[in-house]
């Protein structure tokens, strides 16, 4: 049923107050999401954060205790999976071992009773899209992990569903292959204009692929936003820590701003401390190191290098500031960059615009 605002703005997926309890434990608590057609949305979170349960409620494998699932304006909260018309890629691929690649990919079309001619064309198209033509007669056990992943992907898109759900689809692949598949999935998604809901616990994957990321923790959405926003402007310590390395310097309110635990002045472009204080958040790569002790000023702290690890394109330093925790600094291994050794006295500094105050 189209809403007043017209079909153009009808979200592909609308989750309203979605809640699931198992016994006394609430695994998904009041999740609200509004996903636009063609959007790539990632549910990111540690295991047990409720992301897979949310996806299962979206797919219909799990029925919510409260809340609604609305697909393109149609309330499907109580509908069985088969009535939802979604494509899905499962964590373990779930390739039917008794069917060859062709029949696996054809499965969604077969249950829709499509004529053989159409099945052949569509399966061919799907296999071509995932670059797996020539493998039609193989069985799952004759395929590598990456090839099985492609079969699962082809099967998810073969019926051209408006929405495709993916549950940690790349978890079992090695790093190189994973990166490769990320690019391909993204490309297919753009080409077909599919709305994608992607579940992962890999923050890098989420940042690379998503239009928006919903970071989940304890069954709730901790923050929702585009990759850059959630990475650079986390709203709480959990999000800051979960999305890559983060420095969270204990901070307390002071006249005209905030100071560290040891009283060094801080200045942040955004955010606020709680009444009890909180943290100053700054990413390691936003911090600059220079030789020698610091002249006074906000966001300028002196310290000594405790540890330096050479990571190739980056050198990661742990700088002892006399604060409760050392400061992590990532310095690009750029042309002519100086490399500091342990024990050297340095000044760490960063722009107010690159840091943020967070309540405890």
């Amino acid at each position, binding site marked *: 049923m189209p809403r007043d605002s017209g079909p153009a703005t009808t979200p592909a997926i609308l989750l309203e107050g979605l809640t699931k309890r198992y016994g006394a434990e609430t695994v998904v608590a009041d999740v609200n999401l509004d996903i636009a057609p063609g959007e790539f949305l990632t549910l990111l979170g540690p295991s047990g954060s409720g992301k897979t349960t949310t996806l299962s409620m979206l797919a219909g494998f799990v029925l919510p205790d409260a809340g609604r699932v609305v697909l393109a304006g149609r309330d499907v909260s109580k509908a069985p999976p*088969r009535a939802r018309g979604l*494509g899905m890629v*499962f964590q*373990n691929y*779930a390739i*039917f071992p*008794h*069917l060859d690649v062709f029949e696996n990919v054809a499965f*969604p079309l077969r*249950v829709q009773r499509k004529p053989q001619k159409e099945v052949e064309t569509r399966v061919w198209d799907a296999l071509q899209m995932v670059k797996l033509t020539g493998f039609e007669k193989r069985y799952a056990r004759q395929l590598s992990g990456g090839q099985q992943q492609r079969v699962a992907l082809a099967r998810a898109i073969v019926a051209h569903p408006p929405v495709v759900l993916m549950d940690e689809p790349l978890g079992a692949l090695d790093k190189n292959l994973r990166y490769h598949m990320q690019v391909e999935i993204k490309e297919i998604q753009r080409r077909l204009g599919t709305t994608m809901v992607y579940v992962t616990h890999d923050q890098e994957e989420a940042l690379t692929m998503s239009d928006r990321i919903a970071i989940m923790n304890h069954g709730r959405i901790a923050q929702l936003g585009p990759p850059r926003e959630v990475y650079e402007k986390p709203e709480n310590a959990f999000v800051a820590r979960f999305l890559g390395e983060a420095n969270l310097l204990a901070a307390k309110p002071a006249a005209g701003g905030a100071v560290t635990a040891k009283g060094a002045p801080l200045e942040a472009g955004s955010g606020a401390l709680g009444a009890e204080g909180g943290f100053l958040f700054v990413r390691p790569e936003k911090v600059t190191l220079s030789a020698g002790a610091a002249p006074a000023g906000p966001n300028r702290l002196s310290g000594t290098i405790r540890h330096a690890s050479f990571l190739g394109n980056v050198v990661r330093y742990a700088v002892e500031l006399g604060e409760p925790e050392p400061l992590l600094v990532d310095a690009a291994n750029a042309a002519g960059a100086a490399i500091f050794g342990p024990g050297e006295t340095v000044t760490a500094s960063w722009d107010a615009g690159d840091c943020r105050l967070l309540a405890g």
Partner: protein
Amino acid sequence: MPLGRLGALLLLAPTLLLMLLIFVGPIGWFLSAALGELGSLSEIWEEAVATLGSRTILAAILNTNWIAFLVTLVVLALGYPLAYALTRAKGLAFTAILVCILLPYFTSVIVRTYAWMVLLGRNGLINQALLGLGVIQQPLELMYNRTGVIIGMTYVLLPYMILTLYSAMKAVDPRLLQAAEGMGASPFEVFRKVFFPLTLHGVVAGALIVFILGVGFFITPALMGGPGDIMIAMLIEREIELTQNWPVAALMTLVLLAVTLSLYAVYHRFSAERPGLAA
């Protein structure tokens, strides 16, 4: 700790030795002694043609296979849903079903057969109940005929089918069923296109086991069957005990052995090769 070929052979040795001593040896000795009575190979051949050509024996061979086939069908029809229920049952229900299936397994075949006779006889419990309820006017002939043989054999052979099917069903990844459902399959299609094909090897294995055991049945058809339900094992017994015609008994034993072994070969091939499934 890997055992190696020799180690495995050592572990198998006592069983192998025992089987040779109490199974292969006596059969070999019996066959050679019995057939040796006939004299030369050509004489054996003549006797074989005469034996297998005799109406009684031919009828018994056909009967045996037909009864075993019917029993296999009935056992499959009863066993498949039961095995499925077992895969779905949890906790107490699972234990209860399993005990019901296995308990009779531990009771002697003769005891069980007599128990059935009490139930199925003309004045047995079933007929009395049905007569009492007015469902029937005349007692049903449930025993001393084909019906009795099939009921009795089905009961004895059902556990073999259920346990074989259960292990095949338990091995089906439930995520595959969920995936099929998610791709739009109705519950019936999930069964027909995914669950059943994935348990088909269990169906074939169970059917072969039941059939193989069925062709060798002796006590149940002897006690519960009628004059038309002579099975080959009963004839063998009669040739040895009554007519003491060992050569004929030996020839029929060979036939039974050949049927059993060739079916076993099929079973072995089938369980070794499952197309499309991981080894």
